[in-house]
């Protein structure tokens, strides 16, 4: 113990002795460890951490539960979204499970008045079954949770459990809140409980719910037709708690059997053999549910693992640097070490001494790293949750993260300390003691081998990082710059919700006219339109279409996306009409039902180019009748930017009725930067109706950017870290070459005394760095190709062996390496032979 304390004391003294080196080491390690900690914090939160519930390891999720919304027409394969009546059916028997719970697959934004005279405010709610809290094993912090009796019949029990945060922030942490009546979308609900502080539900998404409401209150909460009726749409997620001794596979078999039976019953007695076979291929995966379900996990796991790989490489480069610096320091301490050996120090003791110094450095680095990680994680979380204020994701490190940082710190210290420690343990006492008498003993090639190998490794790792970063950057550019099929200049998008504003279907025509007139009369506005969904956002409205005279092949996909648009939509958005006409004022509720199709629909159903005038019906019963094609418009990109063009049909808003007459999006084409007229537009809309909820206002560029979040995250961080890596490699090479030159001063002096010219000496040092560069590139290229193959699926519009990216990366490394090498080379060329020959 005394020896260890002595080692620590001596190590600290060594660090104090070289403050410059210590500072560079701590900053390098801080960056490396900090980046690792930041990324790991997010991975821990998204991927590793369990829900704050009882025995989370016994929870299972019925499928991935990442798809949301309401869908119909489920085909063979795994299911992760179910109809409510299926839940009711299996909840009654729930054989292998203690309990099964259901929750709405989408959060519902509602308008809430916490007191009758309070202003309405928006809140995020989650519809849950009466078993939800029981399955999770969560007790209320105040009052009680929703129980099965609260969700036993549609519309009967308007009760609410609010989140602890909502209770603190919006209900003034009032302990007498239990029993208070609040108004949600016009319906009175009684607050029956406050959830415990860490609880955020079973879903880890951008924003945690403000309250949980019985699923049986769906109609009052969503202001939509009931989704609870038998043969309803698929819209709930399910979780279960397995009975003791039951395996997930047993659960899967039971649930799959129940599902297939349910589907056969649901589709009635006239079910075809083909459909029966399809139902036979349906199944429910029973996945671990202890970490909750999260679409963020699905979305960001892969980017985060890629970034983890990136920051591990950065840390490896920092380690190589420090190993080199410590090797140099150990070499400079040869006489001290040999003296210690000569007076009886054991080799293990010397190894321990050097490792102690390395560990001290890495621990100091980890302190700096934790500080940097706090800032970095905050930025990452902000990015992942898109600035949402109430997210269950927190940037604060927990014990797991701290343990990770400590482990990384120790591993790092051991990694960069092992080489100098090994070198010291191999030292021959007599040689070292006499090293000063040999003219060039300290510059011999073998002693430079390890540092040179480390530099070559850094070059190789930097190449991997730079090429990776370059590929991601070009992917991002390709995604952003591709032709989206509409005009992206000066377009502002506004989301609103007339339903939440209390409008009925018959009031909408007047509202739309007033809104558009209010906007169009503003200076700086060129045109405005209204639609169901925004350009590039595909929405969730899909349906098969049945074109008259067209017989689909067996299993042919005839699904098409649908959008409802006002007459000026195509003109405002800038989608060209290729044939026929656009939707116009003449398309009224009483006129012929007119429809526009995009090129993809035309190519699929009308390969001979004769689409105009043809008619089709839409399977969705809410848009009945026969629709005549009056125009073909250009393909515009909808949905993920990597996807192929989608089939899209545009229906006149005027010709739709009831729920389909609701539109949620306004598009404004401005003369100049649309940001400049944003406040005027808000004012104009408020003048039409101050209570009309405006959900989101953004430019089309921001909207497009929201589709490349993953790519932006990877690209920006990969580029940032690769530049750090390159800087570290540059510092490392500069340090090693400078040290080599100092060690070789005597040799250089001899060479100059024997006739070497300054250019020759300059070249000698530069050649060494070029050899290291060549070796690093030679090793780096196959390694980079290997890594590029791994990330191939993340690229877009370029090959993983993109020559331009490889050449640019190699060029960048070469330039940096030559700059790093030039200074020591110039120093070598300026060696005074007379001084050098005395340099012993």
């Amino acid at each position: 113990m005394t020896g260890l304390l002595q080692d620590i004391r001596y190590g600290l003294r060594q660090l104090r002795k070289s403050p410059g080196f210590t500072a560079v080491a701590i900053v390098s390690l801080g960056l490396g460890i900090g980046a690792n900690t930041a990324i790991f914090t997010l991975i821990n939160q998204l991927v590793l951490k369990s829900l704050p519930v009882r025995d989370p390891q016994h929870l299972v999720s019925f499928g991935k539960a990442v798809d949301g919304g309401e869908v119909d027409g489920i085909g063979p394969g795994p299911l992760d979204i179910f109809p409510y009546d299926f839940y009711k059916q299996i909840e009654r028997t729930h054989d292998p499970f203690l309990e099964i719970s259901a929750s709405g697959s989408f959060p519902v934004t509602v308008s809430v008045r916490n007191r009758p005279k309070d202003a309405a405010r928006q809140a995020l709610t989650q519809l849950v079954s009466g078993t939800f809290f029981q399955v999770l094993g969560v007790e209320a912090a105040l009052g009680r949770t929703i129980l099965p009796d609260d969700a036993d019949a549609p519309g009967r029990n308007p009760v609410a459990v609010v989140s602890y945060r909502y209770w603190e922030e919006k209900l003034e942490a009032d302990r007498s809140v239990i029993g208070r009546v609040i108004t949600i979308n016009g319906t009175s609900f009684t607050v029956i409980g406050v959830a415990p502080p860490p609880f955020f539900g079973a879903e880890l998404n951008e924003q945690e719910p403000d309250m949980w409401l019985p699923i049986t209150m769906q109609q009052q909460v969503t202001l939509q037709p009931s989704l609870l009726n038998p043969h309803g749409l698929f819209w709930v997620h399910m979780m279960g708690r397995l009975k003791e001794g039951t395996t997930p596979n047993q659960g899967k078999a039971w649930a799959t059997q129940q599902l297939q039976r349910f589907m056969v019953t649901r589709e009635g007695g006239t079910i075809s053999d083909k459909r029966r076979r399809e139902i036979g291929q349906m199944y429910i995966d029973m996945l671990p549910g202890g970490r909750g379900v999260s679409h963020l996990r699905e979305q960001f796991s892969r980017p985060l693992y890629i970034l983890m790989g990136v920051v591990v490489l950065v840390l490896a480069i920092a380690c190589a640097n420090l190993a080199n610096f410590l090797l140099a320091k150990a070499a400079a301490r040869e006489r001290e070490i040999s003296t210690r050996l000569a007076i009886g120090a054991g080799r293990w003791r010397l190894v321990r001494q050097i490792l102690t110094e390395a560990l001290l450095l890495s621990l100091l680095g980890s302190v700096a790293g934790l500080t940097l990680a706090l800032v970095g994680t905050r930025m990452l979380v902000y990015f992942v949750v898109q600035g949402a204020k109430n997210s269950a994701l927190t940037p604060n490190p927990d014990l797991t993260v701290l343990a990770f940082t400590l482990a990384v710190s120790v591993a790092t210290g051991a990694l960069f300390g092992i080489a100098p420690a090994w070198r010291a343990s191999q030292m021959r006492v007599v040689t070292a003691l006499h090293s000063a008498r040999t003219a060039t003993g300290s510059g011999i090639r073998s002693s430079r081998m390890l540092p040179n190998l480390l530099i070559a490794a850094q070059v190789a790792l930097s190449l991997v990082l730079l090429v990776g970063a370059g590929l991601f950057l070009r992917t991002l550019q390709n995604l952003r710059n591709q032709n989206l099929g509409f005009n992206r200049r000066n377009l502002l998008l506004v989301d609103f919700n007339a339903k939440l504003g209390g409008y009925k279907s018959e009031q909408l025509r007047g509202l739309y006219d007033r809104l558009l007139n209010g906007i169009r009369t503003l200076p700086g506005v060129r045109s405005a339109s209204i639609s169901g969904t925004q350009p590039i956002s595909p929405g969730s409205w899909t349906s098969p279409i049945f074109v008259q005279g067209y017989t689909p092949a067996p299993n042919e996909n005839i699904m098409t996306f649908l959008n409802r648009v006002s007459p000026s939509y195509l003109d405002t958005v800038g989608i060209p009409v290729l044939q026929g006409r656009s939707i116009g004022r003449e398309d009224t509720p009483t006129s012929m039902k007119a429809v526009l199709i995009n090129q993809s629909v035309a190519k699929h159903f009308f390969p001979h180019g004769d689409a105009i005038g043809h008619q089709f019906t839409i399977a969705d019963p809410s848009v009945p009748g026969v629709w005549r094609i009056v125009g073909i418009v250009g393909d515009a990109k909808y949905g993920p930017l990597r996807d192929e063009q989608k089939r899209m049909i545009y229906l006149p808003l005027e010709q739709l009725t009831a729920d389909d007459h609701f539109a949620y999006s306004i598009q404004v084409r401005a003369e100049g930067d649309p940001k400049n007229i944003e406040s005027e537009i808000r004012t104009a809309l408020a003048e039409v109706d101050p209570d009309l909820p405006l959900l989101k206002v953004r430019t089309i560029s921001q909207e497009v950017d929201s589709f490349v979040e993953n790519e932006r995250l990877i690209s920006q961080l990969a580029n940032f870290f690769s530049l750090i890596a390159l800087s570290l490699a540059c510092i490392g090479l500069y340090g090693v070459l400078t040290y080599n030159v100092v060690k070789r001063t005597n040799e250089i002096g001899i060479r100059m005394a024997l006739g070497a010219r300054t250019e020759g000496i300059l070249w000698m040092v530069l050649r060494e760095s070029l050899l290291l560069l060549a070796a690093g590139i030679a090793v780096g290229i196959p390694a980079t190709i290997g890594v590029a193959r791994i990330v191939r699926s993340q690229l877009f519009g370029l090959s993983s062996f993109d020559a331009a990216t490889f050449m640019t990366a190699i060029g960048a490394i070469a330039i940096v390496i030559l700059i790093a090498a030039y200074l020591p080379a110039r120093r070598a060329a300026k060696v005074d032979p007379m001084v050098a020959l005395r340099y012993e």
Partner: protein
Amino acid sequence: MIQLKNLERSYKTPAGQFFVLRRVNLEIQQGEFITIMGPSGAGKSSLLNALALLDDAWDGEYWFREQAVHKMKRKERADLAKKNVGMVFQSYHLLDDLTVRENIDLPLSYKDIPHKLRQGMVADTLDRFQIVAKKDLFPSQLSGGQQQLVGVARAVIHKPPLLLADEPTGNLHSSQAKEIMELFRELNQQGTTIVQVTHSEANAAYGSRVIQLRDGWVVSDTANPELQPYEAVKQ
């Protein structure tokens, strides 16, 4: 061969100008074997470095075979030295990561001599110094005497007319020293002009002329008995 006229070398120190060579006037004839002696700090090595053109920060005149070295540019001086001067050092200054053969080849590699010709010259030199068997060994595998032998071989491989040796036997025991001095004598007899710095009277005996230095002044020269004692000159 060489004429030094009022050669002076000094360093600036916080205490003022510090002279290591004072008004050195010296004439060295072709074929001489000169020994420079004197106590430590007398300026012996400084004089040798000036002669070797390793140092060019001196004042005065330096004539080498009628060429005014003092008027030459640094590069011209370096070229002159490369062609005409060989150096032998007390601590050998062999490059540890080069073999004996590579060390000997080093001066030739700086002279744009074709590789084949260099190979022949190296082979001749190895043979002449009887170190063929050691050609692939590294300096650390040789004794001190053998290392200095390689040092001398390296210094003379390009057949310089002037060989300068700074305490060439300082790190050797007497029998090894004797071998090296015999070698010098042989080289001198073959026509090489030699200037050595030594403390050893025995080594000095191999030479034909002894120059004594003290505090940077030449105080005696066996070839110039008329030389005034330095005290008188100083006054």
